[in-house]
């Protein structure tokens, strides 16, 4: 029973991280219908910068702040330089470009910081069944999710972001700077992604550290419906707990395959995710 409890608690903590990275995918998908496959790489670079700052200054929180700012800048640059030129292309083009960016950034981080694992600190003490680090992770992610919900629902920036995403022509006529809103959306998403990187990485940082996390985050976002931030957070916790049981009872090497199975099963039953709404197909 103790084992079951430990696995559940562990699943909640890792699920929070999947929820955070999943949220960063959902914010971009809502605004541009693009899955940002480079999201883990943007988070990776942010986290490596945090690693360097932490090593140079010894301050975890300064490093934390640097990572978030770096994430925002990287996200904005990605949108401006790589995604905007693809406005009128097929849906395959942004997939390929973000994958290209993923490869470049992973390679660059390997060149700068080597492919060897570097030790990366936890925010707080990580020992115990539900450590202060776990608690911090869950609280930060829930807080971020709530903040995003409030931002989109109740602020004028959120209204403009939504307008730019759903009815760009109308929004433009009403004076919303649609292009700027898209950049803001990407910056916001990449900041949340950087946060996920900081929380997911410890104890070791290496260029492919977020590959698995990304797959689980994508699973969470798909379960949530890709359009639905609240669903994604729920999906993140569900995936975290489910995969924790798989890891504990069946073996850690089967976790990714299990995530794939969950993904396929959910989509086979509900093609728009558990919490997504069906969109009428045009004829």
């Amino acid at each position, binding site marked *: 029973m103790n084992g079951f409890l430990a696995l559940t608690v562990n699943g909640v903590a890792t699920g929070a991280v999947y929820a955070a990275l999943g949220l960063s995918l959902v914010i971009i998908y809502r605004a541009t219908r693009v899955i940002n496959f480079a999201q883990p790489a943007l988070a990776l670079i942010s986290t490596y910068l945090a690693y360097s700052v932490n090593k140079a200054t010894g301050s975890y929180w300064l490093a934390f702040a640097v990572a978030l700012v770096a994430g925002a800048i990287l996200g904005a640059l990605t949108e401006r330089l790589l995604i905007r030129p693809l406005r009128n292309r097929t*849906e*395959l083009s942004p997939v390929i470009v973000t994958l290209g960016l993923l490869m470049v950034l992973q390679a660059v981080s390997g060149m700068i910081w*080597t*492919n060897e694992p570097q030790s990366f600190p936890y925010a707080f003490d990580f020992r115990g069944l539900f450590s202060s680090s776990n608690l911090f992770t869950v609280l930060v992610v829930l807080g971020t999710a709530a903040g995003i919900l409030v931002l989109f629902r109740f602020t004028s920036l959120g209204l403009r972001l939504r307008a730019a995403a759903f009815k760009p022509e109308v929004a433009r006529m009403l004076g919303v700077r649609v292009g700027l809103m898209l950049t803001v959306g990407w910056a916001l998403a990449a900041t949340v992604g950087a946060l996920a990187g900081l929380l997911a990485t410890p104890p070791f940082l290496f260029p492919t550290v977020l590959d698995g996390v990304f797959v689980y985050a994508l699973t969470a976002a798909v379960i949530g419906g890709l359009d639905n931030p609240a669903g994604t957070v729920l999906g993140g916790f569900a995936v975290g707990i489910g995969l924790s049981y798989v890891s504990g009872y069946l073996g850690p090497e089967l976790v*990714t395959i299990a995530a794939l199975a969950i993904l396929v099963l959910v*989509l086979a039953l509900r093609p728009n995710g558990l919490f997504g709404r069906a969109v009428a*197909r*045009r004829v």
Partner: protein
Amino acid sequence: MPAKSTALRDRLTPGAQAPARTSAGLPPLIRHLLLALAALAVIVGLTFVVDPFTNVRLATVGYYLIAVAGLTLLTGFNGQVSLGHGAFMFIGAYTVALLVLHVPSLPFWADLLLAAAASGVAGTLAGAAAARLHGPYLAGATLALAVGLPAVTQRFPDLLGGSNGLAFTVNSRPAALAGTIPTPQWQAWVVWTTVLLALVVLANLTRSRFGRTLRAVRDDEVSAELAGIHIGRTKILAFVLSAICGGLAGGLQAFLLGTAAPGSFTPVLSLSLLAAMVLGGIGSMWGALWGALALVYFQAWSEDLTHALDLGTDIANNLPLAVYGVVLIVVVLAFPQGIQGGVRALRTRLSRLRRTEEGSR
């Protein structure tokens, strides 16, 4: 709607709609077979003049070619994105490895066929799931396959050799050739014979009614369904065929290297196959050849560059990955039709030039 789907098609595969050409006046199957025979003759000739090292490289181009061609069928002709084709190479390689180790009496061609069959079965499963998934969902699911499958070797370390993988030697060379033809040369022959046979099948399929069905589903699923095409079946079949190509590629790689290890089938492999396809030109089988050549030679050039500039190991290890990434970005932004698009434009310009010359005469 028609405007949009035409634009989409033009951007993805200019010229892919051209009707089956019978310029030589021969049925496509015969023409493809003759072309393959000519290609094989050229390659066999080439293996005699180049050094053993280049023979291995030649064989490497061969198995990448068939993997990229399979991906072209799936993505270029049918519009399904797969970020997990390395997983099918993994299945092919391990099937060959297990058969060579545990059923040594089987001839090598039977090993290869079984490897193709095994990845075909896996492709059926993946394809059945994929048929329900669209664009980004499919990309995500196949990426999960690429990340997850190699880890299975850790689960069965006794059978699959854990992270060290399996090592073996394939003895496929006929005794008569043993003294005269060196191993790399023989290997290049085996690889290219298999690859060219598979390519003849692919080229014929894509020129046939099935090829038109694939493109119809890619361009507009609703119209295709109204025209009586079974969408799900078409998508699954495309997936199975491209998985078989991936399995063959993996089997040939195992044959060439004498090993099958999880480290060779990372997500980077799957993504570099995608990079090769995009660089060569999505939607053209010739593009697969340029892509496969690029894959092998990017690797080679980055090694040369490393030696020449005396770069550190951190930079050297990551250079090919950086190159693939930059290639993907630049090609999609600036040359969406890839190398084959350039070749096609050149050919059009040449033929126009010739026509005006004839006209002026």
